[in-house]
């Protein structure tokens, strides 16, 4: 039930001020760039035109890029969901010892906290023309690693953890009595899995598929490195159009083509799949199944499959570390710290820039996340749902679109931000702060509204209530927001590659430049540095969470879940 007469926000001046300020920021950094982008694509000197779109639709190369993008996304979505499900099912049902679960979680976490093309670099190190496996081990000459297969494998390895993290709590939350009941009715284990477990997971599988589909559709770095000339995809085409040909309009039009499927997936996920869950994930978890839901043979097979995938990931990262410590992988394997010396001398400014930007984006993004999350979950004001939707847009759209939109919107007066750190920080805050919003909303749904009313009834105003009651209870969501914004600020590239400048650049962009210049040693060293920093910050945030967590607060199970 909602009140017919939505109480005017004017009743609470503190809330009204924050709402108005947030709307101003959302309009400036979410709506305005997107509208400018659409305007650039669909209008020419004030007149409506589809010429830009038509130019792409008649260009066979670009049409191929469009279909390639969809094909790649489809394959990554299916493959990643299957692997993610195998991992989730193994973790939830095969009664693994704790240490093994920790190993699996760590292996799965690695791709999530690395720059998106880390696996891509490792692929080249392994399977490239001078690759460790293709050339050194198998002695093959003239092999090409570039194309659909390598892009696909690399993206699946990078993104399947998302599926794992969405499916594992779901499998854990399925009431084991349902499976036990089916078993006691005489069904075989396979039949129980087929007729009970799997159907209950279908909405989760669909959700995971759509998340991976969107991630692959938006991935820019992996195809740039691995897809090669014969497998063009939209995000890289848009990038090349802008940076290679300086054709902003053409790049905008290409990103518009990307917008259509991305928006479709977003709406499908938000309004269709999310309403079809049979199982409520409360975060508590129903515990392990009390009976053996899988046979020993199946258990062994599942474990073997997980071991292969986990070993591949660990091998890739070990290789990356090794590559950063030798003269030149594939040619001269003498140990050296040369690459680290390079990145800490001539590359020091990049590291400094990145840390400053990430360090500023982190608190701002965290604050933005809990403020918007709190307002949309708790305060009845006009346009509440619209605010929630708008706050998700930059998060849902592929980074390429957001980057190009920012580039077009903030390149010229009235708001000229190109070349500043602010444009990169704003991009990160309004793109990745969304995770904090969702975490806050999810937590607030578990905190009864009467707690805030009790505070109000005892004489506290909305500011005091937020500070003394709500904030301590949603602190875990705040830390989640901080963590995600920091990690993404350190690792993201798809949007910000359009926004870096001579004055402010990022490690990820420098890694990409190194790869294209074929100085792979420094690229590996940078990657190792990023992974290292991110791990340290995650550990610190975890420590902070334990430190600050009030006895009654609800624990956050995963910083990346959901």
């Amino acid at each position: 039930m909602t009140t017919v007469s939505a109480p005017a926000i004017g009743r609470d001046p503190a809330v009204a001020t924050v709402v108005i300020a947030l709307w101003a920021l959302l309009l400036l950094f979410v709506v305005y760039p997107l509208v400018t982008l659409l305007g650039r694509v669909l209008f020419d000197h004030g007149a409506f035109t589809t010429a830009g779109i038509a130019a792409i639709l008649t260009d066979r190369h670009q049409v191929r890029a469009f279909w390639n993008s969809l094909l790649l996304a489809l394959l990554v979505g299916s493959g990643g969901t299957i692997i993610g499900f195998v991992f989730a099912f193994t973790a939830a049902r095969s009664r693994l010892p704790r240490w093994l679960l920790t190993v699996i979680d760590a292996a799965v976490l690695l791709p999530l906290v690395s720059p998106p093309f880390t696996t891509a670099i490792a692929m080249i190190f392994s399977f490239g023309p001078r690759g460790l496996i293709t050339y050194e081990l198998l002695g093959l000459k003239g092999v090409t690693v570039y194309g659909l297969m390598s892009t696909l494998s690399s993206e699946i390895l990078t993104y399947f953890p998302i599926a794992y993290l969405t499916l594992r709590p779901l499998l854990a939350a399925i009431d084991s009595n349902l499976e036990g009941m089916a078993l006691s009715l005489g069904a075989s284990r396979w039949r129980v899995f087929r007729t009970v477990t799997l159907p209950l997971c279908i909405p989760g599988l669909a959700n995971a598929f759509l998340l991976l589909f969107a991630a692959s559709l938006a991935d820019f770095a992996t195809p740039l490195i691995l897809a090669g000339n014969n497998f063009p995809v939209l995000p890289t085409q848009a990038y090349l159009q802008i940076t290679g040909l300086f054709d902003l309009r053409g790049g905008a039009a290409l990103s518009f083509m990307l917008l259509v499927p991305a928006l479709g997936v977003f709406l499908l996920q938000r309004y269709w799949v999310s309403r079809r869950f049979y199982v409520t994930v409360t975060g508590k978890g129903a515990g392990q199944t009390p009976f053996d839901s899988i046979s020993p043979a199946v258990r062994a097979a599942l474990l073997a499959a997980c071991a292969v995938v986990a070993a591949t990931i660990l091998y890739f990262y070990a290789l990356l570390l090794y590559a950063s410590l030798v003269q030149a992988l594939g040619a001269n394997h003498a140990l050296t710290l040369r690459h680290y010396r390079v990145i800490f001398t001539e590359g020091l400014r990049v590291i400094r820039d990145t840390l400053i930007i990430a360090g500023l984006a982190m608190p701002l993004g965290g604050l933005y996340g809990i403020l918007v999350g709190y307002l949309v979950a708790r305060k009845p004001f006009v346009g509440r749902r619209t605010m929630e939707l708008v706050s998700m847009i930059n998060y849902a759209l592929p980074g390429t679109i957001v980057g190009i939109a920012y580039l077009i919107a903030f390149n010229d007066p009235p708001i000229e931000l190109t070349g500043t750190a602010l444009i990169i920080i704003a991009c990160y805050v309004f793109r990745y702060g969304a995770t904090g919003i969702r975490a806050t909303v999810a937590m607030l749904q578990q905190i009864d509204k009467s707690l805030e009313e009790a505070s109000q009834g005892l004489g506290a105003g909305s500011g005091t209530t937020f500070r003394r009651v709500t904030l301590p209870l949603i602190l875990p969501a705040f830390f989640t927001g901080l963590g995600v914004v920091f990690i993404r600020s350190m690792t993201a590239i798809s949007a910000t590659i359009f926004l870096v400048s001579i004055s402010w650049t990022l490690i990820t962009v420098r890694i990409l430049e190194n790869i294209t210049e074929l100085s792979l040693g420094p690229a590996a060293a940078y990657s190792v540095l990023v992974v290292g920093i991110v791990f340290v910050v995650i550990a610190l945030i975890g420590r902070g969470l334990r430190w600050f967590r009030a006895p009654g607060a609800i624990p956050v199970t995963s910083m990346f879940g959901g």
Partner: protein
Amino acid sequence: MAIETIGVQVDGVSKRFSHRVKGEIYAARDVHLDVAPGEFLTLLGPSGCGKTTTLRMIAGFEHPDAGSIRLGGQDVTGLPANQRNMGFVFQNYALFPHLSVFDNVAYGLQVRGQAAAVIAKSVGDVLALVGLSGYEHQFSGQLSGGEQQRVALARAIVIRPRVLLFDEPLSNLDAKLRVQMRTEIRDLQRSLAITTIYVTHDQEEAMAVSDRIAVMSQGSVVQEGTAEDLYYRPASEFVATFVGRVNLVPGTLIERSGDTVTVAALGTTIRAGTAHAAVTGGAAVKLVMRPEVLELVEVGAGDFRADVISCTFLGEKTEYLLRCGDVELQCVRHNAGAVGAIREGSAVGVRVAASAVTVLPEAAR
């Protein structure tokens, strides 16, 4: 602990909600209440009758679409909840999980900017009052339901509220504790002489704690009065059936003279002490007879004769199901000693005191 005693007036207050299926519905419709200073008023009704909405409007958590709310003559309709100085006890207690018992109780005083020493003294006093001295450093997760309830109560009264509001405060407790807590709440309210409005759906609880009860149904107050008023002189079939168990016997009014009314019912004539004002001669009526006013006597000695369909021995009392013509009657007799010789299948005479019977018009629902 002296608390300023004031009254509460609720004047024609209405609140609409939009419902996904039913469209726009009234949660409260033109509600009038006048609570005297120091009085204990209970809003009683089934779930969805608007009692909680009314209470929340008095507290300031909801804003009425129409009408006004006054505290001691001062109009507070537009005043936010944090400026009304009322104590509210929630159904789920709403204890702050991240604060200790001390900090929970101290919260309202800290918000008021009182000195630490004053706060420590007040909190200590009020915890002693609710019997929780020594619990200061516990967290709500470590307390039993009854203890949480007492903390919630302490937190509400420590701010010396002008009015104390309870929203189904006992519904999360087990039956025995419920009885104990309601006595404690009543005693505390008496000793503090604080104006109290209490919401419950439990009619026994309402009768046990209240000076006066307002029965609500579908957003409106349908009857106000003391527990006895509601029980013996219900103004409608709804109140008659909601408050206690009842036999509603159809009949026809024969005549009405002075204080007594004569009704043709159960194959005889029954005299009643009270009648709804709308009832006139010849009208179809319903007789309100509580199960315990039916006295079982020898056949022929009573006002009418009935067959015993079943009798259930319950220790302190025995319950009978009787049939007279096509009317079934519930009857309860308290057992003073060994049970008499009334058996299932036997016939009995039934006697009813006129003063214990009320007449309602057929249509008064």
